[in-house]
């Protein structure tokens, strides 16, 4: 089955919650909606699930128009960010409830509930009530409820956001496995770029109610279409600065300039925006040919496995992200190194004009 949105939009009063959006989602892989809070991910899910009616456009399932159809008739599953289960029912009855309402024979229900419970390791908790479970178990119950029926589409609206770090990693590893091979469309909303990369599949980038880019996850990570897409799909956010191309060199203010390579070398002279991901600015001299940047360190964040430094450059704050523990003196200048082949160059209208040659 396929899920297709054609110019779907939602306007509430004078506010556009979702600008006209077209999207074609195929079964099997993860379709990730990536964007910050308020980008329109939940709105898109609610529209696709039928919980809200779009003010414009059409929604097709396998080519059939379901725009005005109620969620009951769409045969879909939905997992919310908050652990939503029926509090007065046991875990078993919670998982069984979608089957009971769709009149699955009683003899079949027990087997299917137990199968779903086994996949999500809920077997020992089947006779408890949701409040007696931990957050992770509650969310697994909600997931079991979502996979127990053979739905055409599963919508997961930031399902891991309210779990603690360890549980989140654990469940994220299991998710692709337990949703694989079901032939359903999987839509997964998240605000974390890392999560999108880990889950793979296709990613739709959303920003301020607009879909900015959709494509295979790795591809759009390497080839952001415009400034908006590039900034959504980067964590920490991508560093941007206005630059001017003169001849074979890019000039950032008067202090910094570097040679351009690859496709970028063919760009006409003029004003551009350079974008470079924080992990391509190194606090030590990398093996690749690099440009030294001197900047005053403002903030540092050390996590043990990586070091993040915010530094001033030409009236802007850029971020450097590197592996291991690096030594920074806050308030002191530090020499960072930027690899120009990793740079993206965006035209004045925000569209990607060219990039350096290296991928990533």
């Amino acid at each position, binding site marked *: 089955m396929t899920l297709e949105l054609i110019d779907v939009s939602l306007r509430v009063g004078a506010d556009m919650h979702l600008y006209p959006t077209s999207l074609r989602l195929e079964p099997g892989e993860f379709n990730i909606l990536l964007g910050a809070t308020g980008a329109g991910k939940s709105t898109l899910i*609610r529209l696709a699930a039928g919980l809200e009616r779009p003010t414009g456009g059409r929604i097709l399932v396998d080519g059939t128009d379901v725009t005005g159809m109620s969620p*009951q008739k769409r045969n879909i599953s939905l997992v919310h960010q*908050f652990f*939503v*289960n029926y*509090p007065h029912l046991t875990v078993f009855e919670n998982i069984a409830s979608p089957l009971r*309402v769709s009149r699955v024979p009683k003899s079949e229900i027990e087997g299917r509930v137990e199968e779903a419970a086994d996949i999500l390791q809920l077997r020992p908790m089947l006779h408890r009530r949701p409040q007696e479970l931990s957050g992770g178990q509650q969310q697994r119950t909600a997931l079991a409820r979502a996979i127990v029926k053979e739905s055409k589409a599963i919508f997961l609206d930031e399902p891991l956001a309210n779990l603690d770090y360890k549980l989140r990693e654990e469940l994220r590893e299991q998710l692709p496995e337990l949703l694989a091979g079901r032939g359903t469309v999987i839509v997964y909303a998240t605000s974390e770029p890392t999560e999108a990369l880990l889950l793979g599949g296709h990613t739709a980038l959303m920003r301020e109610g607009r879909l900015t880019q959709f494509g295979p996850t790795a591809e759009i990570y390497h080839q952001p279409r415009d400034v908006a897409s590039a900034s959504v799909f980067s964590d920490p956010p991508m560093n941007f600065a206005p630059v001017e191309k003169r001849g074979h060199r890019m000039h950032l203010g008067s202090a910094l300039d570097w040679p351009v390579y690859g496709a970028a070398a063919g760009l006409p002279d003029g004003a551009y925006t350079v974008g470079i991901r924080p992990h391509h600015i190194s606090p030590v001299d990398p093996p690749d040919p690099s440009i030294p940047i001197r900047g005053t360190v403002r903030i540092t964040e050390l996590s043990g496995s990586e070091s993040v430094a915010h530094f001033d450059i030409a009236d802007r704050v850029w971020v450097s992200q590197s592996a291991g523990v690096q030594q920074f003196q806050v308030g002191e200048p530090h020499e960072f190194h930027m690899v120009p082949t990793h740079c993206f160059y965006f035209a004045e209208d925000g569209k990607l004009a060219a990039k350096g040659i290296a991928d990533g």
Partner: protein
Amino acid sequence: MRPRSIVPILYILFLMLPIYWLVAMSFKTTNEILGGFSLFPQEWTFDNYRTIFTDPTWYWGYFNSIIYVTMNTVISLLAALPAAYAFSRYSFLGDKHLFFWLLTNRMAPVAVFALPFFQLYSAVGLFDTHLAVALAHCLFNIPLAVWILEGFMSGIPRELDESAFVDGYSFPRFFTTIFVPTIKAGIGVTAFFLFMFSWVELLLAKTLTAVQAKPIAAVMTRTASSAGYELGLLAAAGVLTIIPGAIVIYFVRNYIAKGFALGRV
């Protein structure tokens, strides 16, 4: 005894004093009550209670009260559950004003409605029926029920409703098998307040009934005026009137604490 416990003990003592006096009186003879001051019944008698349990005009007073209070509680809940759901989940034209207007119904004194209700119910042939009192009390109880239930319902995330719809529940099925059990604490608290109002309300109940549906409180006042000083009997009737309320409070006491925590009761 530590000094800090003196104040609460005194407080409870003063609080219990009238109830104790009532219970003590109910076991005394009228002569003893009128005869002078005595802390305990000098001459225990169960005659007062015996009269109530054997005389139909007395015990039917209790039945009448229980019948219309139960009817009122059921009607009020049935009407208020959907209304409270609408106020809690949907926004519609004038919803805030309507909600406030509902509450203002409670601000009018009951006496204001006694005459119009008497006229109205006589005209439609409902006078002296349990239904008349039950319906009349709805005017005060439905707004109260909507107000309390709305608070409980708004504490349930909307996502629960949406999950159920996605799971395939039709609205009526979701409402009765998922939503109502989820807010059963709120329904319990609401039922308690409805019961209490209807149980203690005297004016409307007395105005709208004559013989067939006469409530216990009306029986008490009429006996007092016709049979002279039957103080022991009245005290026994009073004790029996308190008991149903006490039983209801016992069952919903935990829910009420929850209701206070949710901030609407």
